[in-house]
């Protein structure tokens, strides 16, 4: 087996990578809405991260004199049906909702990327079998299954992240498989094989890195999808535990106060919508920026 000294290869490779990254960033920058969206997301994440220090009250603190009250000096966004400060719970809720979205998307990627890569690389019957399984899972009414699983284990935030991740990887697997399928016939793979590289190394070193651009986009959009499903599970009462402040949970009881305290329903929904719109904008701009043909 011929092995080239790593140092000699690193120079030009790194340089090329640096220019590619540079070009991607240049293209991303021209996408005005995405820049704004990335800024808004950063702000939301920062506010959520700083929630324990900047929120005016404790998330569980109850003000018995103000039940579902209108905004005033002490409670800038009013209070909920138990007299808890809405602004505080929104800030804390951002922690849960954003973390669930990112966590679930990462789990999906961790399952979907190797699954799709193996199916695409091996091909043949294994590929057919693996992709049939994906088709099958996609035909399943995921929300029904998610709700059933969640109803079994009135568990923790971690449970919800896990379930969402376990039911969200199929799209990524399909995408990676398609990429690997088209890449594996390329000359550089043949060259790697001629150099005596093992299948595993070819897959990990050459195929997956080359398929990464559309996967980044899919994972980004997956964050948005997971946040929406989490919100729906919370709203139905089968998401994160009911006392946990998440954007979805804040909406659970809001329906009953729609006429008297509409802000209870409007504020958390706006937070979800804005976060999801921003994630989608960023994903869309990434798609344009990472597209090598564009």
């Amino acid at each position, binding site marked *: 087996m011929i092995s080239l000294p790593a140092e000699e290869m690193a120079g030009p490779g790194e340089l090329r990578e640096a220019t590619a990254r540079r070009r991607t960033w240049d293209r991303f920058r021209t996408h005005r*809405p995405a820049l704004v969206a990335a800024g808004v997301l950063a702000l939301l994440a920062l506010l959520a991260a700083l929630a324990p220090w900047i929120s005016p009250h404790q998330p569980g603190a109850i003000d018995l004199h103000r039940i579902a009250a209108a905004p005033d000096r002490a409670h800038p966004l009013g209070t909920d049906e138990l007299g808890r400060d809405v602004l505080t719970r929104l800030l804390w809720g951002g922690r849960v909702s954003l973390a669930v979205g990112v966590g679930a998307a990462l789990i999906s990627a961790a399952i979907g990327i190797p699954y799709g890569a193996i199916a695409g690389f091996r091909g043949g019957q294994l590929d057919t079998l693996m992709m049939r399984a994906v088709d*099958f899972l*996609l*035909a*399943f*009414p*995921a*929300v*029904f*299954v998610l*709700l*059933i*699983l969640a*109803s*079994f*284990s009135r568990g923790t935030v971690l449970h919800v992240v896990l379930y969402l991740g376990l039911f969200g990887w199929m799209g990524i697997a399909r995408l990676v498989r398609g990429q690997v399928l088209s890449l594996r016939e390329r000359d550089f793979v043949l060259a790697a094989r001629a150099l005596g590289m093992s299948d595993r190394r070819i897959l990990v070193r050459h195929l997956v890195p080359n398929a990464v651009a559309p996967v980044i986009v899919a994972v980004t959009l997956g964050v*948005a999808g997971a946040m*929406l*499903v989490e*919100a*729906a599970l919370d*709203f*139905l009462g*089968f998401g994160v535990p009911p006392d946990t402040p998440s954007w*979805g949970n804040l*909406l659970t009881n*809001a*329906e009953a106060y*729609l*006429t008297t305290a*509409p802000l209870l*329903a*409007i504020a958390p*929904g706006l937070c*979800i*919508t*804005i976060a*999801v*719109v921003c994630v*989608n*904008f960023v994903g869309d701009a990434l798609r344009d920026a990472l597209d090598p043909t564009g």
Partner: protein
Amino acid sequence: MRYAASRIGQAVPLLLLVSIVSFAVMHLAPGGPTTVYAHNPLVSGTQIAAIRRAMGLDDPIPVQYVRWLTSLLQGSWGYSLVDGRPVLTVVAERVPATLLLMTTAFAIAIAIAVPLGVLAAARRGSRLDHALTFASFFAWAMPVFWFGLMAQFVLAVHLHLFPVAGIHATDADDPLDLVHHLLLPALVLGLGSIASWSRYLRSSLLEVLGQAFMTTARAKGGSAARALVRHGLRNAMIPLVTVMGLDLPNLFTGAVVTETVFAWPGMGRLFYDSLAARDYSVEMGLLVIAAALIIAGNLAADLAYGALDPRIRLGAERAA
């Protein structure tokens, strides 16, 4: 014809697999179906054991599965743990309401998405096109149930344009009243599809517009609009059909929350109620019927695809 037969043939093992997985999922339940009774001080341990024996829960799992599958095929689908009625009866009561809601949402979505998509493609790059792009991003990002709440708040509570919830007024039984109750939840359910289908149609139209037969169509001397609709739209609709089929699971997801928000007495609402009551046999039945409807939807999309585009149909037959 052979194409249709082979597609239908593929659906059968899929359905069998669905039944196995549904059964397996339900048997992950901690405590099993008798958990409801375990919390009831009036039900003793020996009684629970008797119930378990009567329900056949002590038999080996494969035996239980075969028994359940038999009941599926024979048409009783097991019995509800809440009121003891056959699951099929309980579910069948709810199917029409859900199908009505979903088909209406589907129709509204097509009726709005197609003109929007054509308009956006025809005026590509215009202010209208940008506005529609922006709006569709927001339509996508809104949680369905939240859009439902907001629609209730603005259109029903404040403007009194629609009833807040339910399927008909307590004393009324006329179709107009039903339509009145139907429109708002159907619009809420269809919003996501409007956004994604109009976007999809726009890009597939733009692709078609660049092709030679479009130039030919315009060279024949008809108006640009005529060429767009007669030749462009027809070809651009083909891939959209598949997207519509793939959207069915989303529609089910949406139906669960929409029916909950609007107190619509359909399968989604029944599912929610049976979760709360731990009515496992009804949950299993709903899981199977929802999966069956999704598979049927995808099948219909496949067949429509073949009908719209002879190349697909013939290609599949040649391969078979």
